[in-house]
């Protein structure tokens, strides 16, 4: 861990108090905290130290790293990265092979018990050979690296919940970080990919306060994942009025009506897209006319078609109903036959009786 505080580092670069306050303002906004918190953030940052970060990439598509690096550097996000020490990231770092692994081991030794581990990608359990780095299986590397970590940040839906590799039939036996790591705090930052400012916001939180933010029951920071897409969607008034686009180019779509019927999974998806938006706050999926896919939720790949309304079951119900109908007809016909038989037997056994049959002294 670097000896200098973040404030001292900024001062060294000739950044004034005003510049520092501006940085704090941007950071507070990035962490999705109310502006009233700016002084608190400033105070915390004055004594904050640069944490060491080890980034592990397992079964992933590098989309999460792309999301992060394509987020307009060197902005606030860039500043965050300037002030953490990213000691190992095998995709971004120049070193490779033994030198890279050495860097990781060194960082672990120097900062034992204090460094952060960021993981993107899921871990295959079916066969360790499915994904290895420098000949080390993902599982081994995770266990070894996490042993001395202060906390683990699982970036992206793959490391948070298994993601695409975990989708049925899950050939690699992919699992999430939190299903393996039980003795360290795990912060899930899901999304496919996650919003870059959310990734940096979580890092910023740790950098600023030296603690992990409050999490929901799926391990996600509540500041970013506390409300659903639907709760904050600007198309919500249309949903409430019953005004829906029915195709992607009808009148309703042009007027910006709700996308529920086109398969929007916003009602069940907890993420910050509606406020933080994407691409430097240019827009976000629903704003550009496409429903939410639910990418920050566990098993979103297995939750049926992206273009089918949330209220529609996703099993093969037509087939189930077909078999059921056939079975129903067969059983119904059999039952009908039995009843017919009972009835005709009853008719056949029917015999007329007279008052005499009721005589008291019959015998």
């Amino acid at each position: 861990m670097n000896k200098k505080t973040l404030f001292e580092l900024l001062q060294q670069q000739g950044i004034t108090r005003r510049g520092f306050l501006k940085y704090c303002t941007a950071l507070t906004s990035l962490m999705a905290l109310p502006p009233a918190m700016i002084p608190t953030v400033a105070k915390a940052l004055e004594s904050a130290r640069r944490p060491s970060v080890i980034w592990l990439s397992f079964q992933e598509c590098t989309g999460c790293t792309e999301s992060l690096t394509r987020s307009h550097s060197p902005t606030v996000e860039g500043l965050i990265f300037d002030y953490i020490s990213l000691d190992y990231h095998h995709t971004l770092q120049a070193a490779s092979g033994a030198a890279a692994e050495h860097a990781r081991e060194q960082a672990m030794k120097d900062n034992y018990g204090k460094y952060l581990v960021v993981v993107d990608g899921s871990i295959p359990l079916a066969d360790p050979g499915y994904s290895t780095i420098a000949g080390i299986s993902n599982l081994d590397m995770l266990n070894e690296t996490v042993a001395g970590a202060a906390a683990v940040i699982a970036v992206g839906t793959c490391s948070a919940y298994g993601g695409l590799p975990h989708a049925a039939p899950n050939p690699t036996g992919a699992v999430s970080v939190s299903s393996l790591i039980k003795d360290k705090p795990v912060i899930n930052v899901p999304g496919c990919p996650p919003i870059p400012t959310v990734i940096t916001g979580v890092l910023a939180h740790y950098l600023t306060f030296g603690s992990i933010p409050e999490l929901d029951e799926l391990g996600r920071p509540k500041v970013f994942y506390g409300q659903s897409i639907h709760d904050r969607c600007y198309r919500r008034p249309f949903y409430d009025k019953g005004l829906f686009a029915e195709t992607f180019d009808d009148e309703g779509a042009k007027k910006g009506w709700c996308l529920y019927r086109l398969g929007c999974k916003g009602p069940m998806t907890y993420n910050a897209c509606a406020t933080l938006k994407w691409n430097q706050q240019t827009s976000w999926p629903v704003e550009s006319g496409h429903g939410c896919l639910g990418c920050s939720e566990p098993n979103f790949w297995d939750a049926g078609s992206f273009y089918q309304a949330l209220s529609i079951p996703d099993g093969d119900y037509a087939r189930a109903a077909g078999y059921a109908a056939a079975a129903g007809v067969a059983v119904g016909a059999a039952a009908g036959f039995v009843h017919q038989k009972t009835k005709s037997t009853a008719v056949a056994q029917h015999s007329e009786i007279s008052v005499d049959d009721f005589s008291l002294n019959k015998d």
Partner: protein
Amino acid sequence: MELFSNANDFLLWVRGDAFNIALSIFVIGVIIRVLEIVLLGRKKEYSEPRGSEWGPGLKNIVSRSVADSGTFKRAPFVIVVGYIWHICFFIVLLLFVPHIELIHAMLGIKWPGLASQFIDASTVVAIAAMLGMLWHRLTHPVLKFLSTYEDYLVWLVTFLPLLTGYIAFHRMIAPYPLALGLHILSVELLMIVFPFTKLMHAITLFIARWYTGATMGRKGIES
């Protein structure tokens, strides 16, 4: 071992396997019950018909929806509240857009829906009506005496979809996948119980009314 690792898994199961199971039981059950009735047939009628069967049969299906004054005088509460309940229930069932989407996906037909404040109001009225009905059943001595466990079961499985639907719509249980999952599950329960209880009246009423109307039509009686 936990059954579901999270609410999403639960929702996935409810929308997948559980729905297929419930739908199968519902379809098998309804077909068996209807075939049982239809295949049993009626005794052959040898008398000369004095009128047609179809017209009066169909007319009777509609006309019997209005309670005759005698019945009304005997149980005005049940009839008025029963009416209100059925109307509100069908508004909610058939005019809420997510429900229409489901019907469209399954049967290929669709119609316009209502704005959610109407659906919301109807749900509240339907829930209130059901509570009123339950209260009536529990306080009316004759009704209470006649009630079996089936009556309470039927009340419960009908009430739960309304209640859970209201909760899910207002997002009163978090996370939402859990709320939605509970709603769908309660409907699945209703589907499973439906064919084997008096809930079948939703289908058999047509058969019964048609038979009555047709029989009377044949005998030339105005029904």
